[in-house]
């Protein structure tokens, strides 16, 4: 083969190598393992067919884990987007104060999630925490944020929203600024009120940003791990256990790699569906100029 013909392959080789080694191979291996019973070290990997999948589907704990994950992702993304959209509308102005507020709400985004988890654990402590002390000033009795199965998932959502709004707001502001001024001028000439302007103009023009953030947010929150591992370990009573933590727990605590891989395949499918959805819909339902 001549060099001219071989050249593109040589050029792309490093990228393909990395991609194969760190993406394709692990995914393939995970799918392979999901049909086996293995404890990570034994030389024997026993082939069990689809039995991992069937027992996973009958596992009440896994179904709760799925429910938790959907609940967590849905609420986190919905709340983060709503709050940051409002913030973006407010902050999309020039002035030192707006810049400062924007900087302040962005800062959680650059702090390591582990530090954030430790910090919030202290803030949300039932007896000695800052949050309950503050609520106490208004006569609200101690809320067991992280230690009651009724509030624990919500507490993790609060942390995720707190961490996420800064970044989302920034993207929204960029989106708002890319909307041409002249449409607003036209609307103003027609005497359109602000609410109508928002729903008929701003929101459709912002839809690519909105869509991007929803998908990215969903994919991201489906993979939540650090806050759970540090703040609750999936408890109390399994109330904050989500897919990735469940995979970790089964693989590395209970030595059930096959079972964990099966849950991994399910996660791959869910995220795959979101991604396909994203690319299919992109440019069709979403308004671009």
């Amino acid at each position, binding site marked *: 083969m001549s060099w001219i013909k071989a*050249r593109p392959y040589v050029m792309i080789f490093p990228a393909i190598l990395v991609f194969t080694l760190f993406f394709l191979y692990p995914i393939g291996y995970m799918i392979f393992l999901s049909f086996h019973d293995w404890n990570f070290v034994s030389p024997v990997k026993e082939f069990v067919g689809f039995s991992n999948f069937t027992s996973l589907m009958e596992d009440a*704990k896994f179904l709760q884990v799925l429910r938790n994950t959907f609940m967590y992702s849905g609420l986190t993304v919905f709340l983060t987007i709503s709050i940051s959209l409002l913030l973006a509308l407010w902050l999309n102005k020039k002035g030192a104060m707006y810049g400062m507020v924007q900087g302040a709400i962005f800062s959680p985004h650059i702090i390591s999630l582990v530090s954030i988890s430790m910090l919030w654990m202290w803030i949300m402590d039932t007896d*000695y925490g800052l949050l309950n002390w503050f609520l106490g000033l208004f006569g609200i009795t101690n809320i067991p944020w992280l230690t009651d199965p009724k509030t624990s998932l919500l507490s993790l959502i609060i942390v995720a929203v707190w961490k996420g709004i800064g970044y989302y707001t920034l993207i929204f502001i960029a989106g708002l600024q890319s909307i041409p001024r002249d449409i607003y001028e036209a609307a103003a000439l027609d005497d359109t009120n602000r609410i109508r302007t928002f729903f008929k103009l701003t929101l459709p023009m912002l839809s690519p940003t909105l869509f991007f953030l929803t998908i990215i947010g969903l994919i991201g929150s489906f993979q939540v791990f650090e806050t759970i591992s540090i703040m609750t370990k999936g*408890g*109390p009573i*399994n109330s904050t256990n989500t897919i990735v933590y469940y995979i970790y727990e089964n693989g590395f*605590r209970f030595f059930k790699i096959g079972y964990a891989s099966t849950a991994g395949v399910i996660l791959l499918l869910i995220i795959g569906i979101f991604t396909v959805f994203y690319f299919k819909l992109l440019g069709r339902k979403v308004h671009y100029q």
Partner: protein
Amino acid sequence: MKNVSRFAWLLVVLLVLTACGNDEDKASKENKVSADSGRTEITYWYAFGDKIGENNENLVKMFNDSQDEILVKAEFQGGYGDLHSKTQAAFAAKNAPEVTLNEIASMGVFARSGMTQDLTPFIEKDNDINLDDFNPGLMGNSYVDGNIYGLPYLRSTPILYMNVSMLKDAGLDPKGPKDWKEFEEYARALTKEGTSVGMSMPVSIWYFEAFVGASGGDMLAAEDKEVAFNGQAGVEALEYWKRLSQEGILKIPAGDEASAQAAQDFANGRSAMIFGSTANLTNNLAIAEENGFELNTAFMPSNKVNGVPTGGANLVMTAGLSPEKQKAAWEFIKWMTAKEQTIYASKYTGYLPSRLSAVESEDMQSLYKEIPQYKVAVDQLQYGKARPMAEAYPEISTILADEITRSLLERDLSPKEALDQAAKLANPLLQ
């Protein structure tokens, strides 16, 4: 164009070269008798920081200074859970430490999956080691399927810690409660609405084992084929917890930080008693002094009988080492579990002296005279039981802890129902 192609080839050559280089490097590392010192290097992983971590680092340094054949590198790996998962991952990556710790309930998983080395041949060949000197109450978890896989190192039992100053204020005998009935009376007398509770205790399977043991029951049935915790003894134990917790004299902090929370309650005088590992004794004595109260220790309260689980970790060797590394690892394990070292560790942390000769030594006896709190755990050891070692026990513990918590939180869920539910989920794992 030519330049580009030359560059590309150069890259390929470089890649291949570095790959080869790495292989060689690795190979030489594996049979390492490190050239500069001539000492065999081994790595040792341990769990926990504070006093316990210092104790590990100090002992390893003493070992390295005591001879010039073997060089041990000690590495901290977090709690038992982290230590176990890291060891497992490192073993799969063929990069495991030569010597590590197994929390005693995990001895079975590691041995049966082939991660740890059967030590029986080493013990048989070695005349220096006398197995009969190890406290028999601690040996139960050393044997897996008839072979020895680990030697008792930092071992404990749960004991009752009491704030004597609060006990005296309430007019109670500072010796502490003996059985469940007295324990309940103590807890009631020590509870002052809004300021303090009798006892703060996280839902811990280790303590549950103690309560089941005190009622004369077991966690798993013989041969580990079925759970037994939903029998009479288990139900009695959980009913007792539930009753005390609903009366408000037993506080049950929940969540990941529950143990830390309980410890904090005790340190602040918000709770007059806690259960804890004897390993925390030195720390707790320091805390008591800092906060200006007097501390005493007592046996875990008995119900029908005395019976406590033992705890802590055994030293184990990983499987698949070269003979030379095995020899070094064995020497290290032998040294770490010898009489002098167990005395050192016990005095430094509060862990049990694992050897009978150590308990009788002048060193320990004078310590017991001076600070009698150290003696409680040693005396209690005569009632010590091994922890279950079934492979699924870590998962079963999680299931059981969830159901126990549920029963404590939900007024209508009876202890029997909760334990039966846990048994229903756990039994298939033992098949």
